[in-house]
């Protein structure tokens, strides 16, 4: 198995600033996106991404390619950090945790509409059970193969497919109006 990150990780661990920068460029947006969708909270997502990279810097000097790809390991770390935060939220039962705070800046109507729809999708994702959300995150948003996603979640491919299907069915019901609006927009645009 060839790990495209192996050399970068080795060099970053040895203090090569360019390698560290390349690792951050390659993975940071994906880590922030993952945490943002898992936690439905932009600030917490940045904290998680920062924690992931602190662990990367700590592990990099002794990283040995082999059992798992570096990216798989990073996804696992990010998901575990998200699970920890979700568990703490449940323990504290903070009603405001994970609630998106809208930007107060005025928006043009189409921007406002796009933001409303985006928030609705984030909210629907946040309502999914954690494992279904994680499965969808890895396959749909991170575009991992089914095998890599199953490996990251430490489940079988069949179990992964079950999580994905249940998650998508729930989202289909929750987002029927958004999907319908988008189809309408696309039809309108195609007629213009």
């Amino acid at each position, binding site marked *: 198995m060839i790990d495209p990150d192996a050399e970068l990780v080795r060099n*970053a*661990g*040895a*203090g*090569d*600033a360019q390698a*560290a*920068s390349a690792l*951050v*460029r390659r993975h*940071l*947006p994906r880590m*922030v*996106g993952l945490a*943002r*969708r898992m936690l439905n909270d*932009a600030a917490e*997502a*940045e904290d998680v*991404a*920062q924690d992931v*990279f*602190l662990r990367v*810097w700590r592990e*990099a*000097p002794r990283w040995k390619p082999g059992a798992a790809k570096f990216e798989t390991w990073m996804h696992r770390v990010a998901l575990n950090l998200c699970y920890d935060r979700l568990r703490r939220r449940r323990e504290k039962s903070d009603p405001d945790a994970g609630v998106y705070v809208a930007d107060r800046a005025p928006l043009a109507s189409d921007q406002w509409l*796009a933001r409303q*729809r*985006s928030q609705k*999708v*984030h909210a629907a*994702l946040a309502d999914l059970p954690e494992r279904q959300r994680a499965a*969808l995150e890895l*396959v*749909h*948003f991170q*575009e991992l*193969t*089914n*095998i890599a996603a199953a490996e990251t979640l430490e489940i079988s*491919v069949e179990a*992964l*497919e*079950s999580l*994905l*299907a249940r998650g*998508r*069915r729930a*989202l*289909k019901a929750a*987002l029927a109006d*958004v*999907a*319908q609006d*988008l*189809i309408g927009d*696309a039809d309108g645009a195609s007629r213009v």
Partner: protein
Amino acid sequence: MDRERFEVLLDAYGADFRRWPDDERAAGEAFAAQDAGAAAMLNAARALDRALSLAGGAPDTSALAARILATAPRRSAAFDTRAALALAACAVFGIVLGYGGGMLAPLADQDDGYFTAAFEAPFGDDGDEG
């Protein structure tokens, strides 16, 4: 591929065949091309994919990237540590070499008369005479 398997995969992976398992992608595409009902199923799955894309997109991470890179390992620090260790090793080696070398090279037997002679009065006892 039969309809049942097609539906299972569509339910799990959506309408974009790039997300399908590598070993079933081609069969799925072939089924979609020849089955009369596949287009409607694909359209329904595509609508959800499109809705989910509203939660995708790359966030702006430039400020965060700078903060993270400030915590990355530095070569200079690593070099200083190695250099300090190397210097310490050299010092220890030098001490051992100096001490051990001295022990290994015995002094030749020498008449120490030159040493005691140095403390003898240089002018003998001529001054006492007279």
